[in-house]
């Protein structure tokens, strides 16, 4: 088990956003968590990354409880996040943004190889290498955020609402890249999405989160055909 979360509670002062979520991700899986706005999806991802402290619960990464470990240490352990709205470093160049992703990893040969691979995946990033990240379009920033997370060769990639604010064509493209990374590269991905249909299509398993509780879980293919899910979350 790569990631195992037990009874996770997350609260902002007095208001509890996540009421005891339990879920897990196996090595090589692409798992999605879907749910409406405000269901607590981003809170869960941020607490996995260590950006939001959980009120209680256990987060096990490769068997080790990481729930009290600071985020920069989790990053070194191989957890990386593609944050909501990309959050690239605006006044740093595209290349510098990618270099930050490599922070703490000193293997020049491997770095070059990773960068070459990423430039192949996202050619625009090579083209815009010396431009400040703030000058990129929303879609390009999202690509940069993905590349910045991937450049370190993570063991677990957390993806937070990657479809938000992107035009439909780009959403498809980004989802295709994620699927490719998972299938061809064996990258373990935990995806959090409002775009339920698209994430059910690429993921193997899915959790449905509703007001801080996991309501359903199962294989994505089965979920897609479940009339309750179709009606409530897919609007079909």
């Amino acid at each position: 088990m790569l990631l195992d979360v037990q009874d996770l509670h997350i609260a902002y002062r007095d208001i509890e956003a996540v009421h005891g979520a339990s879920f897990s991700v196996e090595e090589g899986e692409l798992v999605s968590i879907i749910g409406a706005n405000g269901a607590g999806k981003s809170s869960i991802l941020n607490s996995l990354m260590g950006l939001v402290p959980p009120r209680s619960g256990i987060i096990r990464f490769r068997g080790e409880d990481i729930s009290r470990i600071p985020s920069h240490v989790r990053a070194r352990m191989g957890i990386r996040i593609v944050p909501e709205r990309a959050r690239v470093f605006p006044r740093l160049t595209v290349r510098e943004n990618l270099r930050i992703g490599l922070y703490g990893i000193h293997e020049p040969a491997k770095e070059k190889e990773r960068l070459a691979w990423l430039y192949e995946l996202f050619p625009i990033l090579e083209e815009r290498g010396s431009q400040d990240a703030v000058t990129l379009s929303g879609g390009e920033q999202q690509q940069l955020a993905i590349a910045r997370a991937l450049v370190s060769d993570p063991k677990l990639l957390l993806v937070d609402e990657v479809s938000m604010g992107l035009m439909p064509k780009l959403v498809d493209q980004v989802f295709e890249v994620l699927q490719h990374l998972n299938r061809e590269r064996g990258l373990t991905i935990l995806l959090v999405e409002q775009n339920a249909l698209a994430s059910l299509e690429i993921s193997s398993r899915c959790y449905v989160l509703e007001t801080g509780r996991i309501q359903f879980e199962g294989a994505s293919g089965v979920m897609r055909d479940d009339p309750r899910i179709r009606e409530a979350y897919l609007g079909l």
Partner: protein
Amino acid sequence: MSDYTITIGTFIAIQAIVACGLNVIVGYAGQISLGHAAFFGIGAYSSALLTTAGGLSFWSALPLVLFITGFIGLVLGLPSLRLKEDFLAITTIGINFIVVSVFLYVPFFGGALGIGGIPRVILFGERLRGTPFLFLCLAFLAAVQLASWLFTRSWSGLACFALREDESAASSMGVSPVRFKLAAFILGTAMAGLGGALYAHFMRFISATDFGFPMSVMILSMVVLGGMGTLWGPVLGALVLGMLPEVFRPLTEYRMFLYAALLLLMIRFQPGGLLGESSFARQIFSRLKGGNQE
């Protein structure tokens, strides 16, 4: 050069060193500090005490001075780990007032009388004064600029920039906020300590009021005017703000008015500072560069 020019030049060089230190903290690491004069003062007082009561030479005291200021900078930088923006600004103002009060009310630091009889810097058997001392200050300024440049090129510099831009995104990339904020405080305050040491041996008499809150505002204005986070901004800022009072000597009565007008014009037309992004200087420079390539 006349004595007058040399004196003004020395002041400007010293203040540029201190402003470069603040630039590391504010410009590179993005931590606001309105109490930088405290570290300027700590550097001046420690060098003064070590060379008078301590009996050391300027040169053997200097490493200790840098260590002391850097260490106190580390301790007083701790609030930056918990506080942000306005709260950090207010806390750093508080630190400035506390440090000045300690100098003023603890007899060890000479109280209101300050410390006098600080020896001159001796280099190759010469007591440095006038032009040679100005050159010494310029040499230290060059060293500080070199250190700043190396810092911006290093992993630590890049990590600080990332923290300045987005702290939580940086920490989820493996950058430790604690480590790099404190690294910036240590480097920035040690530079202020160096400026303080030079100031003490230039003035040869120091008192607590030299290092008060108005001085902090002055140093911050230099950094903002020149361009926060740029390499040469603080030096240019120190040059402009150091020369203005001299140029406008006939208008002494209106000096504060001119400062205010200058700052407002800056905010309106050059919010990034004289050398900041999208500033006139940068635009002209990039146009010249573009023209050469064609």
